[in-house]
């Protein structure tokens, strides 16, 4: 009798108990000796769960979005502060230090879209926040924590890219000028020079709205996913011009999130087909299809140590240990 085929890969473990679909995931701590690693998850019902990866249990639940879906979670690098974006048009800043969990500040948002925010934390005290703006095609840049509006990025009148769908603030090593990558409803990705408030470059990557993108500033290369059956990889040349390097076919259409691992070796996509797909970032070779969830996967996140988390509509968060770095 032939040996049984090796079983398909399993998640390392699964977190249950959000009791509603998971829409946002974010790892924090663990790497820089900030205590035990934690995973934050945002649910459809507006709750933020803080999971201890050690006990695999929720250590706290934050309720700050009045039952409206939490779409984006981000901790600030300098400490125990958490940003949560909800469909209740509020962006909350939480203080999590020493077991506290209180909202210390909040920003009122003016767009009901699906677009998640992005931050650029330069100095210790000040950081820049990009959120969808008042006008349907606008992106608003705020200086935090003072909440002063720096500018509004509005595409030129003839461009008509539609709503911004995903944002990524970043800074090149060579210059201190903040840059913003934005994926738009018409399937294009644009690079904004924030201080000059102008589009440096724009490239059409998809025929459907761009739903997720991630950018590797070291390689000056990014990847984006949309509702269609392909991923687009694009790069940025020295003149800050975007160009599509290639597209990669998927078996099933629909990507809801895309993340490059912090070591820039692999990337993971969250698929509407219930699967998480893992690719080699340099070659875009497909490495694995992670089948566990029984509904759309909404979000993926990488921990600093490489652990992968995927949150799904099936109310579960699966944690995977992939190609652990040696």
């Amino acid at each position: 009798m032939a040996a049984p085929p090796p079983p398909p890969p399993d998640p390392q473990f699964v977190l249950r108990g959000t009791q509603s679909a998971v829409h946002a995931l974010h790892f924090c701590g663990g790497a820089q000796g900030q205590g035990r690693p934690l995973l934050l998850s945002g649910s459809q019902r507006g709750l933020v769960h803080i999971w201890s990866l050690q006990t695999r249990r929720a250590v706290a639940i934050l309720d700050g979005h009045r039952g409206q879906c939490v779409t984006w979670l981000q901790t600030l690098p300098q400490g125990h502060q958490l940003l949560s974006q909800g469909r209740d048009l509020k962006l909350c800043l939480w203080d999590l230090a020493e077991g506290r969990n209180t909202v210390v500040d909040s920003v009122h948002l003016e767009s009901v879209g699906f677009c998640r925010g992005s931050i650029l934390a330069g100095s210790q005290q000040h950081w820049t926040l990009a959120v969808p703006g008042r006008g349907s095609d606008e992106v608003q840049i705020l200086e935090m924590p003072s909440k002063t509006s720096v500018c509004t990025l509005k595409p030129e009148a003839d461009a008509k890219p539609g709503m911004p769908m995903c944002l990524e603030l970043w800074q090149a090593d060579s210059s201190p000028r903040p840059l913003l990558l934005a994926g738009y409803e018409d399937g294009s990705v644009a690079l904004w020079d924030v201080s000059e408030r102008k589009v440096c470059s724009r490239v059409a990557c998809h025929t459907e709205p761009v739903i997720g993108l991630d950018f590797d500033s070291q390689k000056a290369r990014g990847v984006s996913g949309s509702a269609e059956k392909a991923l687009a990889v694009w790069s940025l040349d020295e003149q800050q011009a975007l160009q599509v390097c290639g597209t990669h076919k998927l078996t099933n259409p629909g990507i809801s999130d895309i993340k490059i691992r912090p070591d820039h070796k692999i990337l993971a996509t969250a698929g509407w087909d219930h699967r998480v797909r893992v690719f080699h970032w340099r070659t875009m070779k497909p490495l694995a299809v992670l089948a566990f969830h029984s509904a759309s996967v909404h979000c993926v996140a990488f921990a600093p140590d490489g652990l992968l988390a995927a949150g799904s509509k099936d109310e579960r968060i699966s944690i995977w240990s992939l190609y652990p770095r040696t």
Partner: protein
Amino acid sequence: MAVFDTPEEAFGVLRPICVQLTKTQTVENVEQLQAQLQAVSDSALQQLQQYILFPLRFALKTPGPKRERLIQSVVECLTFVLSSTCVKEQELLRELFSELSACLYSPNSQKPATVSEELKLAVIQGLSTLMHSAYGDIVVTFYEPSMLPRLGFAVSLLLGLAEQEKSKQIKIAALKCLQVLLLQCECDDHPRSLDELEQKQLGDLFAAFLPGISTALTRVITGDFKQGHTIVVCSLKIFYRTVGFIMADEQLRRISTVQEKPAVEHQVAKLMVHREADWVKSTGDKLTILLKKIIEGVSVHPHWKVRLELVELVEVLLLKCTQSLVESAGPLLKALVGLLNDESPDVQARCHKVLRHFADQKVVVGNRAFADILAEHLHSLATSLPRLMNSQDDQGKFSTLSLLLGYLRLLGPKVNFVLNSVAHLQRLSKALIQVLELDVADIKIVEERRWNSDHLSTSPKTSASRPWSQIQRRYFRFFTDERVFLLLRQVCQLLGFYGNLYLLVDHFLELYHESVVYRKQAAMVLNELVVGAAGLEVENLHEKHIKTSPEELSEIVTSILEEYTSQENWHLVTCVEAEEMGEELTMQQSGLQAITSGSSTCQVTSFPAFSKPSPTICSMNSNIWQICIQLEGIGHFAHALGADFRLLLMSALYPVLEKAGDQTLLISQAATSAMMDICLACGYDSLQHLINQNSDYLVNGISLNLRHLSLHPHTPKVLEVMLRNSDASLLPLVADVVQDVLDTLDQFYDKRATSFVGVLHALLAALAQWFPDTGDLGQPQAQSVGEKGSHSSPRPAALEKGLEKSTTAEDIEQFLLNYLKEKDVADGNVSDFDNEEEEQSDPPTVDENDTVPDVEPPRPVQIQIAADVMERCIHLLSDKNLKIRLKVLRTLGGKCGDFLRSRFCKDVLPKLAGSLVTQATVSARAGPVYSHTLAFKLQLAVLQGLGPLCEKLDLGEGDLNKVADACLIYLSAKQPVKLQEAARRVFLHLMKVDPDSTWFLLNELYCPEQLTPPHPSLHPVQLRGAVGQQNPYTANVLLLLQELQ
């Protein structure tokens, strides 16, 4: 009361008697003198001492033959005088000493003179009293080199008496006297301690006697046990005090290399000993031989006081003569260590005290030579251990292992010197592995099954306060004594405590991997290593030793745990009956073969659950023990880590729970007690509490394992156990995992349905229990109805009602019935829905939405679950496997009566009855092995299931008759007893449903008495069962009829 206080008065009285005694030496005169002496005060006596002594000494010195009786009374009188006075002059002391010694001198032989025992005793006491009466400094000056010959004579005299006399009294007196003579007297009359110089001088002097004293005493000590313990104890005491004095390192250190010229005559000088290095070396060697003899004899002495004295001997010699007796250190330590586990608590306590003293004084650890000796001993012991374990009886093993334990205790952290050498570690571990080999030939281990799978006992507090230290009874190949096992455990614990844990765990894990033959033993050792490393139960003699930190221990435990619970070490074949496997017949045959062949050849091999070769009884036993040991280990680990074990629950709880539901009794017991240990360690009140609080971890394991069901066939069982021990608060978690279960079931309808039906049963039971009929609206469903309640389509009233109350089993049942009716109507198939069910090949969930979309209600979670389950059950009703059908039927049992009845009667009953009838002929002829076959178990299951079903389903007369007909055959005495019992139980149920027809049926088989009609005009009834005529059914029918009346 003294009459004569002044010397003058006393002199007046005593003078005539003394004169008379000097003239005529008779016993009477001596006695008269002694009588008068009684009346003289001590001070007066002191003044007249010399005067009174004169006639007595004269009597002793008079040449010519003397009567013993006279000498005896003279000596006694002399002793009396000496006991009341002090000897203040050196010369007097010496003379008296010589005169008394001479009383027992026989010029012709070396031996003491052949005189009466009374005289010997008197002289011994006289000498003893004399030495006591010596005043102050004159005692010290008494021991001059010039005295050597005279002292030597006395010493050899006393030794001779102690050795050769028959009277115990004389022996003891001689020994006591020797003690006095060697300045070892324990009485309070010798307050002055000797200074260094004096000690040295005495040592030099006594050294001359050492050979004589040590050899003679050794002969006494190793003599017959019957001589009594006092003599041996006393001899031992003199032995070690003398040796300890003469060979004391402190004295020897100051001995110069060149002997001073003693100021004595040449003859005497020749006798003097100079204790320089060569002498010490050769004397040490000789003493080692004697000590070995002594230890050999005394360590097994039946009297505990003797063994206690041996402990003292070891202590004194090891503390005082570390260097001079370095060769003896080994045997001495061995003796001490061997007594650590003495049966007498006093000896044990003293041993421990001495060991602690040694540790405090760093006698062993602070001394390289000692540590080396111990390490060497440990090594040689380890080398010979396997051989000893093979050849020795249990008592021998016990003392050998005690010795090993003692070495480890003494070496403490230095045991690492031994362990760091690969050769040493290998010898030690091989020995342990060999000794711990289990006897796995017992068929009972496989055979004992756990029949009722219902409940785990709930509270850990019901057992003893430290249940973890209790261990399942094991049977070892090389010993039977429990104490030996206890010692082995202690040895491993000590190794874990003092040894380098990483090294040891690595080593034993390697052995664990190396061969199945070692695996169980290695696991046992690993378990104890961890317990020891945690410092539980270990008496630490080495205060500076730092034990393994909790973090390290936790890390180590994690890795062992991973090993234990890995697929190939955890899922082993433990029974031939693999109910999941489809090919029942082939299994049945191979099972039988395995039993017959297994008992003859006993090979131990391990089979992972998925490999095919038919396992032998031995290999299954071995597997069972391995799992038990690993389970026990998990309990130990929990105990060792305490609350820190909570973090490991996510990986440990699932496997343990899986084994708690195992069919093999031993495994399930071991798993339960492991869970108890976990409860205690992690602070859970009960198993239920433990399971409930950690359901998320369990669900995680269940859900992931369901993905690979072929590798984890027992996953449904874990869920079953979890459900039984959970409460309503876990509903969301349960709902989550039930979805997985149902999905998996949909994939495996054909192969593994049996195990799933159990889960479904447990699930429904749990739901019914969690949401009892409280009459008011339960919280969860009210909420969910409210949330999703935008449902406007008309629903049947019953369904409406079911939803509103919706919490009891009855409601679920009601709902299902309505649902089924509804579905039939929707399918346009009212008259014969059974056919429809059978034709339907897809799982019902698929077409549900298509056929009855409007009836899909906004169900509360638990109702949704129940409905989903029911749908699967319906499908399973037509499964080919009888066992599954029965289980399904019992699951649905009383809950869906009418529908089930018709299905049951039409579809199931004929097949069940048919199979019972055909099998009956087989079982009636079968031998005793038959009860191990699947066919038997199937018959039993059918019979056991039929009764309750008939009752619950409320079958009609015709169907009841079918059941009764099929079961009647099993009332025959030819059938296996268990089947008869089961059949009787069926009839008991039938009686409840229809007592009259049952009575009739039974009487048809056998009629115990002639039935007389109540009125003569009625015909006498003639039943087919002939009255009084014995047939195979008689016994059972009689039993049943008794029940009816």
